[in-house]
C-alpha cells in the first residue's frame, strides 16, 4: 500500500461538492463562528507546548521536568528506551494523565478548559489498546466515527489503512499488524489536526511497519501534525522531522535526526572485540589514530566513532597487528540515533 493521492483527492472533490451547495444560514453561521476560532489558532505555529512537566508515581519519578515544543505540520518523535517516560509524557499531552507540575498547551488550547474541542481535533492511538474482539473492522471504525462531529468517511478510512478485504472480519481474526492499522484508522477517522501515536509499530514485522509508515506519510501529506513515541531509532530516523531523545524522564537531546547524528562529529562507527585472552590496545592509543573522534569500551566490545572509515580502518588493523591482538568480531555501520543515545547515556536503547 502506498500513500497515494487517490483517497485524499477524492475526499477533496467530495468536500468541494458540498462546498458548492447553497448553505442553510444557521449552519453557515456556525461555520463562521468555528472559522473565527481557527484563524486565531492558526497564528500559533505551535501544535504542542509543554513546560516543566513532572509526574511522580509512588516510588519513581516518571517524568522529571520535561519541556517540549512541537511545531504544526511536523512529525515529532519521542525516542527513548522502555521506562524512559515516553508513554507517561504522551498521555499527559493527550489529557489522559494529570501532571504533578508543569503546563500543557495543545493546538493553543488547555485541557482543563477546552477538553471537548480538543478531543474532537485529536487522533489518538494508545499502547496496548485491545479493541472489541467481537466487532468487525467496519463496525469498529463506524463506532469511532460516530464520536466525531466531522471526519472522514468510514469506508474511505478502511481503504486508507488497507483493510478493505477485512472489513467484515472480526477484530479477533486480524493479525497484529492489521490490528495496529485498525487502531490508527480509529485515530484518523475524526480527520484530526494532530495525531498522537504511542509505539505504533512495537512488535510488528518489517512489512507491517512499512505499511504503517506509509499511512502516516499520507496523514502528513494532509498537513497533519504527528507526535509519536518509539524505541526504534530507524523508525525515528525515517519518520521524524525532529526527535527528542528521552532518558529518565528528561529530554537529553533535541533536534532533527540529521543534526543529532552530526553532533557525534563522526559518520561511522567501528566495533571490534578481541579474541579470548587478548587485551585490546588502551583507548588512549586508539584515540590518537587520525579520524577517531571517540572510543568507548563496554562489555568487551570496543567502539570507535570515526569520520572516515577508509583511512581509519587500515590504521586500526595495523595497530592491532602490532599489538598482536586477534579479533573475534569486527563490524562497521553508519552512525545512527542509537549511537547518539549511547554517547549520551553510555547505554544502548534496546537494553537500557
Amino acid at each position, binding site marked *: 500500500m502506498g500513500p497515494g493521492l487517490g483517497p485524499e483527492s477524492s475526499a477533496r472533490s467530495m468536500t468541494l461538492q458540498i462546498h458548492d451547495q447553497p*448553505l442553510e444560514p444557521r449552519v*453557515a453561521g456556525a461555520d463562521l463562528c468555528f472559522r473565527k476560532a481557527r484563524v486565531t489558532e492558526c497564528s500559533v505555529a505551535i501544535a504542542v507546548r509543554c513546560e516543566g512537566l513532572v509526574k511522580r508515581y509512588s516510588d519513581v519519578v516518571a517524568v522529571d521536568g520535561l519541556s517540549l515544543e512541537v511545531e504544526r505540520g511536523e512529525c515529532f518523535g519521542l525516542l527513548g528506551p522502555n521506562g524512559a517516560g515516553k508513554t507517561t509524557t504522551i498521555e499527559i499531552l493527550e489529557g489522559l494523565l494529570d501532571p504533578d507540575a508543569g503546563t500543557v498547551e495543545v493546538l493553543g488550547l488547555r485541557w482543563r478548559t477546552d477538553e471537548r474541542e480538543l478531543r474532537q481535533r485529536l487522533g489518538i492511538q494508545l499502547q496496548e489498546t485491545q479493541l472489541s474482539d467481537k466487532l468487525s473492522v467496519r463496525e469498529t471504525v463506524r463506532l469511532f466515527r460516530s464520536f466525531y462531529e466531522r471526519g472522514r468517511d468510514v469506508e474511505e478510512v478502511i481503504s486508507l489503512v488497507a483493510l478493505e478485504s477485512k472489513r467484515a472480519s472480526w477484530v479477533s481474526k486480524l493479525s497484529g499488524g492489521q490490528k495496529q492499522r485498525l487502531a490508527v484508522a480509529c485515530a484518523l477517522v*475524526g480527520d484530526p489536526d494532530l495525531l498522537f501515536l504511542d509505539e505504533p509499530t512495537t512488535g510488528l514485522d518489517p512489512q507491517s511497519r512499512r505499511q504503517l509508515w506509509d499511512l502516516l506519510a499520507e496523514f502528513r501529506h494532509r498537513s497533519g501534525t504527528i507526535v509519536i513515541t518509539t524505541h526504534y531509532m530507524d523508525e525515528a530516523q525515517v519518520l521524524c522531522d525532529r526527535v527528542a531523545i528521552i532518558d529518565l524522564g528528561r529530554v537529553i537531546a533535541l533536534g532533527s535526526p540529521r543534526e543529532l547524528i552530526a553532533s557525534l562529529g563522526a559518520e561511522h562507527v567501528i566495533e571490534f572485540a578481541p579474541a579470548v585472552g587478548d587485551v585490546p590496545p588502551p583507548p588512549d592509543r586508539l584515540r590518537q589514530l587520525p579520524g577517531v573522534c571517540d572510543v568507548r569500551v563496554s562489555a568487551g566490545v570496543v567502539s570507535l566513532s570515526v569520520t572516515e572509515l577508509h583511512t581509519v580502518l587500515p590504521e586500526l588493523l595495523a595497530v592491532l597487528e602490532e599489538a598482536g591482538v586477534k579479533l573475534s568480531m569486527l563490524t562497521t555501520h553508519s552512525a545512527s540515533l542509537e549511537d547518539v543515545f549511547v554517547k549520551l547515556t553510555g547505554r544502548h536503547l534496546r537494553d537500557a
Partner: protein
Amino acid sequence: MRHEAREPRGGEDDEVTRHEGHEGIRHEGHEAHEEGSQENLRALRALRGPDRRVLRGSPRGGAWPPLLELTRARLYEFIREPEAIFWAFVFPIVMAIALGIAFPSTGESPVIVGVEQTPGGERIREGLSRVDGIVVRDVAPDRVAQALRDGQVQVVVAPGDPPTYRFDPSRAESRLARLVVDDALKRAAGRRDPWEAREDRIRIAGSRYVDWLIPGLLGMDIMSTGLWGIAFSIVQARLRKLLKRLIASPMRKRDYLLAQLFARLAFLAGEVSVLLAFGALALGMPVRGSLAAIAVLSLMGALAFGGLGLLLASRVRTFEAISGLLNLLMLPMWILSGVFFSSANFPEVMQPVIHALPLTALNDSLRAVILEGTPLSGVAGEVAIMGAWGIASFGLAMRMFKWS
C-alpha cells in the same frame, strides 16, 4: 437526548481551514461566506450560549449517533458470545423445567409408607397397597431410622397387634402420612364409619408452588443477567484498555454507561418473554395481570440491577474481584428476597430491610401482577424502590467510575 444531534462540522469548514493554512488562497474561504453574512451574524448570535450545537440530522460519515452506535456495538458483542446467550435464555428455562419436574403440576403427591420386614408385615403391606394414594415400600428393621431421615418414606409401620407407627412428628408430611395409613389400616380391619363425607375437589390455578416460583425465577434472571452482563463487560473493557481508548476520543462518558443499560434492556424483552411464555404454556402458570405492567416492572428491575452492575464495576480491575463482589451482592438477595421460599419466613425485625431490597420489590410486584392481576398502581411502592436503586446507583457510578 440533545447530544445525539450535534451540529455537524461538515466538509465545508474542513475546506476552509485547509485554505487558511496557505496564505495565497485564504481569501477563497472567506468569499464563500460573503453572501448571506447578515443571516450568518444573526445565526451566530443565536448560537452563542452554553453550546452552539444545532439540531440537524448529521451523516456522521455513515454512522449513527454515538449512543445508538455504542448500544449497537454492545448488542453485537453480546449476541456473538454463545455463553452469554446460554445464561440469559437457556439457563432459566432449564431451571424452570427442572423445578417443574420436581413439583409436578398435575395429580396429588402420594403418601409413601414403609413397612418393616418382620412377621406379619406381608398382611399390612397387602392391605395398604390396595388403597389409592399410598405407595408402599419394604424397610429392613435395622434401616428404619435411615429411611425416615432421608425422606425415602414418610412413616414406617411395624407389624404387631396393634401395629406401631414410627415417624418424626416435626415433619408435616409424616404427620399426614400417619393419618392416612391409620385410616386405611382401620378400614381394612373392618372399621365402620358413621358417614362418608362428600368431596368437592377444586383446582385453583396459581396456587401451586411452581406458579409462585416462576415470577421469582423471572426476578432472579433479571437480576443476574443485569448484574453479570454489565459488570463483566465493563471490567473486560477496562482490562483491555478499551475504556481508556474510548475516553481519549470525544465520546461522552454518560453515553457509554447508558448504552450498557440500553443494550441490557433490548435483551431483557427476549429473556422475560421466553421465561414467561414457558411458564404460562408449558407449566400452566396463570398470567392474570397485563403484559404492559409486567414489561414496566421488568424494565424497572433491569434499570435497578443495571445501575448496581455499573456501580460494582466502577473501579474493579480483575474478574476475580468482580465475581466476588457480584456474589456478595446477589447471595443475600437469593435467600432474603423470596425466590425459592417466601421472605415472610424471616423474623419481623428484618422485614423492613428485606422489603427495601430491589429483588424483593421486583419479585413481590411480579407475583402481585402475574398471579393476582394487580394493576401497576397497586405496586407503585415497589416500582419506586426499584427506581430509587437505579437512579442512585447510576448517579454514584458516574461519579466513582474509573476509566483507565
